[in-house]
């Protein structure tokens, strides 16, 4: 078989697998439902396009090839579903319902038109370039291309519009989408030139499926790596892979050459040398990176110490002053200092935690503790704040529960996060219900409030770093969006799980977490 045909076939094969794989993967993540489903449908449509193309070009019989090529009609749905999931991902699907309706309508009409007038779509295929058979455009094929242009321009326009008034996170995300879609459609479009007999080799179109990778990343994760960093990393990895591949191919050629040129040359010699060299070089790089790690660790340790010293002073002085001040006003001011300082410590921890590759900034110290009294103690701490807002706290803490293995300071701070949130986001006169029960081999702590609730769209992101719902941000403008993220990480490090339920905005929320019982 022709080398180009083989290459493009393998490329398409991998591309199909990646596209379908990611389409299915995204379906099972907890991104927005509409986004997930329409993205999956788009992935299926892309896969059908790719399958029909690659099978068609291998088919010698033109009549059969034509039947296969007819599946190319699904291209119409690629752009339709693409438009739909893009709008959904940027939160405009509801708003642009009418536009979407028009797109679906036009698309379906076009599809039906071509279905009943196949000659208008594609004519009998014939061999082109190195393909056994390739598309030959019908008189109205250009309509489909025109449809693509219109729809793709439409959602590009929508993306750019939202970009203007978006926050940093959304902007970064839109950049991912725009860059990836441009590359994807750019590459994919190279398959169309040959349809119109323009002798442009469509081999590049085999990379089309790979664009689902950054797209699914952009959909699934809330906080995306900055796109420039992502591109740099991707470039580095690609170069690395290319170098290793070239190395392997080079060694193989070298070996064949020597074996042919020198009689009696041992066939294992060159691979052995190459292998040894690779191990040595790999080792050197490993040591280098460990060294870099060690220097970074030392820097972090020093930075941590330098940051924490003044923070400690503030904390201790504030704590002492709290005991000494007389008036309520003064007490409140000192408490504000305390809170600000705690937030700084929290931020410093997160900063240092994210720079470290592994391990905690503050590792856990576990002991067997009785959870119920700890819960009551924390309830005591928040009691005053609740009283100020006339919020009733109901407790349903079972007694005689088994002990858990936990780091008291950490679990206490996790409890505080949930309780503080419940009180903060529940309007005056509301109720907060706290319960602690045993369920199989774990204790489940849950706090239910009659507060501002969480919308369906926001629920999947509640525990993500820096995430804050719009309503929450209105109530507490200073909030860092880190409390629940840290609480989740604490619970999960203890082997537990967290969860949240809400019937919607204004309908209250229930947060829960489980901790395994001490063995």
């Amino acid at each position, binding site marked *: 078989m022709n080398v180009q045909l083989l290459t493009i076939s393998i490329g398409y094969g991998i591309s199909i697998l990646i596209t379908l794989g990611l389409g299915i993967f995204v379906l099972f993540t907890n991104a927005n439902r509409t986004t997930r489903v329409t993205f999956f449908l788009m992935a299926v449509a892309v896969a059908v396009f790719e399958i029909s193309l690659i099978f068609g070009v291998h088919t010698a019989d033109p009549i059969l090839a034509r039947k296969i090529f007819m599946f190319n009609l699904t291209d119409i749905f690629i752009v339709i579903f693409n438009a739909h999931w893009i709008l959904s991902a940027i939160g405009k699907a509801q708003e642009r319902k009418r536009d979407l309706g028009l797109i679906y309508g036009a698309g379906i009409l076009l599809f039906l038109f071509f279905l009943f007038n196949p000659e208008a779509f594609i004519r009998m295929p014939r061999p082109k370039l190195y393909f056994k058979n390739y598309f030959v455009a019908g008189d109205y094929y250009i309509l489909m291309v025109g449809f693509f242009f219109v729809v793709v321009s439409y959602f590009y326009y929508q993306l750019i519009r939202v970009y203007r008034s978006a926050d940093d996170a959304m902007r970064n995300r839109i950049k991912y989408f725009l860059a990836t879609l441009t590359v994807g459609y750019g590459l994919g479009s190279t398959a169309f030139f040959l349809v119109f007999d323009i002798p442009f080799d469509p081999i590049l179109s085999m990379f089309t499926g790979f664009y689902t990778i950054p797209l699914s990343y952009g959909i699934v994760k809330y906080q995306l790596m900055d796109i420039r960093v992502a591109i740099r990393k991707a470039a580095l990895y690609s170069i690395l892979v290319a170098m290793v591949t070239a190395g392997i191919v080079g060694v193989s050629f070298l070996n064949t050459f020597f074996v042919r040129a020198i009689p009696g040359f041992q066939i294992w010699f060159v691979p052995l040398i190459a292998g040894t060299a690779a191990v040595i070089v790999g080792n050197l790089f490993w040591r280098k990176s460990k060294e870099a790690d060690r220097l970074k660790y030392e820097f972090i*340790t020093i930075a*941590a110490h330098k940051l*924490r010293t003044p923070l*400690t002073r503030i*904390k*201790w002085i504030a*704590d*002492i002053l709290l005991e000494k001040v007389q008036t309520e006003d003064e007490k409140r001011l000192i408490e504000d200092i305390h809170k600000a300082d705690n937030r700084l*410590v929290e931020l410093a921890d997160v900063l240092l935690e994210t720079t470290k590759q592994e391990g905690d*900034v503050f590792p856990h110290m576990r002991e067997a503790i009785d959870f119920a009294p700890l819960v009551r103690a924390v309830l005591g701490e928040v009691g005053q704040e609740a009283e100020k807002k006339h919020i009733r706290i109901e407790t349903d803490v079972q007694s005689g529960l088994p002990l858990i293995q936990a780091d008291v300071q950490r679990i206490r701070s996790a409890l505080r996060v949930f309780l503080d949130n419940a009180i903060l986001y529940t309007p005056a006169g509301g109720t907060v219900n706290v319960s602690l029960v045993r369920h199989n081999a774990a204790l489940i702590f849950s706090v239910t409030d009659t507060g501002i609730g969480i919308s369906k769209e926001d629920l999947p992101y509640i525990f993500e770093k820096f995430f804050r719902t719009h309503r929450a941000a209105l109530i507490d403008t200073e909030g860092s969006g880190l409390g629940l993220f840290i609480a989740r990480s604490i619970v999960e490090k203890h082997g537990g799980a967290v969860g949240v339920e809400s019937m919607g905005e204004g309908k209250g929320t229930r947060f829960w977490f489980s901790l395994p019982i001490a063995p």
Partner: protein
Amino acid sequence: MTRNILFVEDDIVLLGILERFLREAGFDVTIAKDGEAALQLLEKTVFDVVLLDILLPTIDGFEVLKRIKADPKAAATNVIILSNLASPEDFKRGKELGAVDYLVKAATTPEEILAKIKQFFKEPDIVAEHQRR
């Protein structure tokens, strides 16, 4: 029963705050600003509790801890490490060298430190409590 504490810390501001706080809570507090000074004091007196920072001039806290535990006279002293170093290695080392607790300064308040210290004094001293109020 004497209630004497040795507080080893190189930051004079923190030294002053906690020393005063513990004094008002009814404890006898001796301070040392570096490892050398701490060891010298430990030779002369047996303390009930030692609050030990790690990053100290001259000799560091881990070394001081090692020497405390190596001295038969002082080996039974309760040493609480009070440091802003908080890597898993540090925690492990502290425990291995015999510290009874490891508190991270930036994450603890004087009140909490007091609570931890009180664990090592079995009889409640009502007079001292009253003095604090």
